[in-house]
């Protein structure tokens, strides 16, 4: 447990999962819906940027902007064209919207494959730091930028949720849509903001994480699952809960294979999910939740 390189790896994963979970958190708060499509949004954030830079010769920052805008646009489309109409039609039944969002997940994944190709592209490093030595380990600039940006994002979100009107409304609307509508709150506007914001957060997450091991078009499903787990573990009581959940998941994903061998991770995650979802679905930091 004292190998710094492993811890760095765990923290990297933790930051990434935390950002994904935050992306889920925003949509969940604002709409009461688990947007599985954040996985592909993240993939687009990373893959689109890399593709523009490598294949199309864009310079870095314009490519980043385009990719993040694309992620946000996909999120907006998800809400406007898929989730809202399907939810309106199916009332209290969760399944149609769930199935529809998985179809969105696949559509984005396949579209990315068609447009960007199926090979794994390396991630793009945004800032130029020097690598830092910690004991026997090396903190690469890509990892450092992931950690720093994650901290900045979470702090910003924590402030935003508390200070801005939209931020405070987010939770109110998500908890009870009908009551919110009756009170005259701008439900549809909040929903769109929540989705677009989640697209941005996921896009940033994918962009930063792509540097670790590259990114390819079918990462969407795995990342969607990782983010969901991280959110459920952490809970939804505060903005920071997703980060805690992400860190826990990152630690598990690094140390379980290290101590128990590769296959144990799948088994452990399954058992963990069954226990957590069954016994404490509200996560570590709890608000009431209905499974």
């Amino acid at each position: 447990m004292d190998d710094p390189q492993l811890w760095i790896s765990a923290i990297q994963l933790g930051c990434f999962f935390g950002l994904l979970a935050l992306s889920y958190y925003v949509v969940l708060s604002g709409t009461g819906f688990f947007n599985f499509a954040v996985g592909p949004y993240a993939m687009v954030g990373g893959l689109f940027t890399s593709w523009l830079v490598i294949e199309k010769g864009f310079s870095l920052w314009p490519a980043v902007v385009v990719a993040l805008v694309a992620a946000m646009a996909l999120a907006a489309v998800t809400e406007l064209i898929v989730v809202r109409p399907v939810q309106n039609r199916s009332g209290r039944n969760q399944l149609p919207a769930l199935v529809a969002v998985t179809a969105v997940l696949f559509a984005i994944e396949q579209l990315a494959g068609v447009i960007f190709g199926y090979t794994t592209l390396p991630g793009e490093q945004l800032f130029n730091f020097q690598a830092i030595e910690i004991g026997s380990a090396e903190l690469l600039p890509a990892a450092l930028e992931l950690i720093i940006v994650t901290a900045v994002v979470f702090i910003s979100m924590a402030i935003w949720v508390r200070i801005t009107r939209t931020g405070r409304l987010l939770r109110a609307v998500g908890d009870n849509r009908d009551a919110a509508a009756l009170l005259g709150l701008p439900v549809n506007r909040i929903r769109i903001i929540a989705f677009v914001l989640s697209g941005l957060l996921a896009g940033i997450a994918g962009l930063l994480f792509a540097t670790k091991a590259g990114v390819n078009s079918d990462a969407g499903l795995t990342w969607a699952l990782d983010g969901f787990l991280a959110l459920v573990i952490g809970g939804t009581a505060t903005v920071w809960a997703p980060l805690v959940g992400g860190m826990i998941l990152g630690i598990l994903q690094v140390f379980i294979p290290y101590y128990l061998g590769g296959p144990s991770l799948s088994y452990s995650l399954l058992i963990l999910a069954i226990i957590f979802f069954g016994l404490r679905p509200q996560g570590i930091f709890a608000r009431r939740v209905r499974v």
Partner: protein
Amino acid sequence: MSTSKTALLDGKSLSDGRFTAWPRGVQANGNALIGVVAAVLILVWVGTNGYKQTLLISAGAYALIALGMYVPFVLAGSLSLAYGAYASIGGYSVALISEKTALPLWFGWIIGPIIAGVAAVLLGTATRRLSGFYLVAVTLLFSEAFQTYLSNASYAGGAAGLTSFRPLDVFGWEPSFDVLIGATAVLVVVVALLLNRLRLSAWGVVVRGMREAPAAIEASGARVPMLSLVALAIGAGVGALGGALFTQMNGSIQPTTFTLNLVFLAIYMPLIGGTGTSWGAALGALIVVELTLNLPSLHTSGTLLVALGVLVIMLVAPRGVLGYLDLGRKEVTRLFRRTGSRQ
């Protein structure tokens, strides 16, 4: 008070007490007829062309997996993504019987679904309080864990899987590949038929009631948690049949044969084909196989078309293909009848 039965049933009398005697029954028999005719036509089209036979095998296996998902998902309202695992159980049962024992291969066809049913009951018990997104996530993890298990199971060939089976031996008769192709179509038709009968039967009515009004069903005397498990088990068994079929006909199986992609496609198949009848799952399988395996790559992928197609259908035509055909049929018969029929 009126005691005339026929007045209540708009002129149709009860023949055997089944509710299929009502207009829905007529529809069920009509669908079955179309299904059989379609199967015959497909077999004729496939003939002995090797490539087309491969398509048919895939379509048949997908159809069975989709039919397997149909029971818990459409009838009982519970979405589980563990079907890759159940199909693998079916396939590996056949493969292992061939590899490790001297028993005839059709044993695998029987044992596989039973083991899958037991697995479904265990998983269902562990997840009995879960639904919606949580259940999807857990069953996804289960699929991945199961795949990992298979990759590391040396008795099952590990990551390389198992290949080269003995031929299928039915009490001394070894059917040729072409005959087996025909049997594939027959199997799918039979399963779709039986599941449709099941949907319309008392069991089917109670299970569908359980989906929408579980408190009422429980208060009427049915044990809801147990009934969910039975539905899951039946679905898993049918899914395992699909796995057994695919493995038997293709002659090999690996841990990655039944991917998650396939499971998601299996959800979409009844939605595309129409959830009102089990034949929709079969039709959806045909459409999906056509799009994903048979279309020459025209700068696009079949899965993309399927995903987009599902979204369009869910938004615009939620009854699926068969649902709209059936609506059309009703309109046509109404036009023909001319007398104002009370609906």
